[in-house]
């Protein structure tokens, strides 16, 4: 059969055309196309990786953010608590101080009162002494006039003092 007989001329031409086609297409088509495909695949893979990384980073940042918020919240309550404690302490201290101050003042007042009292007593005593002296003087001055009466008077005094 003629169909099954390969013709040499056609084989030669096919070889030439195929070689030329392989050479031209490799140089002008396959290389740029395959390189473009590879590059784009790489770019896409990189973009996807970056997106994934960014997502993770975002999640990390969010949790970090939340942790910060929590911390801030804790700190705030801590500060509030501290302030309250401090307030309580100050108030307590002030109260204590006021109390002790008051006590001190009362004490002082008491002491002053005592002092004043003592001074008054002493004054009264002095006055009484002076009065006694004056009276005694007067009496003495009068008694010198009559001896008998003086003796009599002294005797009454002695008697009185003996009674004491």
């Amino acid at each position, binding site marked *: 059969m003629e169909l099954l007989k390969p013709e040499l001329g*056609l084989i030669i031409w*096919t*070889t030439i*055309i195929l070689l030329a086609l392989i050479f031209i297409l490799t140089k002008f*088509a*396959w290389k*740029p196309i395959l390189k*473009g495909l590879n590059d784009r695949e790489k770019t896409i893979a990189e973009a996807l990786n970056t997106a994934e990384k960014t997502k993770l980073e975002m999640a990390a940042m969010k949790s970090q953010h939340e942790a910060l918020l929590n911390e801030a919240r804790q700190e705030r309550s801590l500060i509030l608590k501290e302030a309250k404690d401090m307030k309580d302490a100050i108030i307590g201290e002030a109260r204590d101080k006021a109390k002790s101050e008051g006590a001190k003042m009362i004490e002082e007042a008491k002491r002053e009162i005592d002092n004043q009292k003592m001074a008054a007593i002493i004054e009264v005593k002095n006055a009484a002494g002076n009065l006694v002296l004056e009276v005694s003087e007067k009496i003495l001055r009068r008694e010198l006039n009559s001896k008998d009466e003086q003796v009599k008077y002294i005797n009454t005094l002695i008697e009185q003092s003996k009674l004491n």
Partner: protein
Amino acid sequence: MAHGEEEPNHSSSTQNHEPEKEDGKFNAKKVILEHISDSHEWHFFSYPSEGGYKDVALPLPCILYNDVNGFSFFLFNKLHHGSVDGYSLNAEHHIGRSDGEGFYDLSITKNVLAMMISSILLILLFRTAAKGYTARPNQAPTGIQNLMEVLVSFVRDEAAKPFLGNKTDKYLPYLLTVFFFIWINNMLGLLPGGANVTGNIAVTTTLAIFTFILIITGSRKHYWMHILNPPGIPFGVKIILVPVEILGILTKPFALLIRLFANMTAGHLIVLSFLSMIFIFAQMSPIAGGGISLFSVAFSTFIYLLEMLVCALQAYIFTMLSSVFISEAIVEHSHSEEHH
């Protein structure tokens, strides 16, 4: 084929131009063989003229070599008017020598011209597609680049990478070229008046030889050891197996060339046979011819659509099997021996 479906009468004049001159009978075998064979002219159609038919055909350049005349260059239509440099047309309308000497026919035949046209088409298509990558690097593909990219990555990911692995880059340009060369020639061969390039055994032989050369040049020691001394096989079996394996070196590319040739030729044969039935029946009676034409056109349309699938399929199979055969030969280390 389209003109055959739409204008049966006109087509019949085109196809059985020669046989009608001889005996007035429609010769289906001759018509079909002429359609699927290579030719020195590109025949488009014939039209009735006074006393016969006139051909509308593009004469192609003949390049012939003979020890007596050396190289001869002339257009084929010169032979219609007589012999040139001792070459003349024989009874089968083929080039022969009147002195009976042998000669080499290196003519630009219909198939050669068709291959040149399809190659130029391929270069233009892929050049345009490739420009997209340099013009818009790392951007989404557009237009023709988009279409070609799907096909290129299909060949890379389905026909090459699974078998060749990290050697893919080395063989990919060949595999891509072969895939698109076969596909475009298959498709152009389906066009009415198109050349049956991939259904020509010389073309498929050349393609198979290319793959064979790649298998042999890429082969490693492991490949030859498996053929000449299959491990883990008893000696008695080896006596039978080794010759079979040695034959296998050749049968693999041979299967490639026969498969492509047979598939494409068969497709053309079926379509042409269905259409020829119209004219065979029309010679019996015009009514029978008209009736059978409905059936013929329906079936040939169906086969035509099937052939479009076969075009892509055969291109894929040839490419895929080429990469399988190459991958078998280039295996470096003998991991398969562990299984024996």
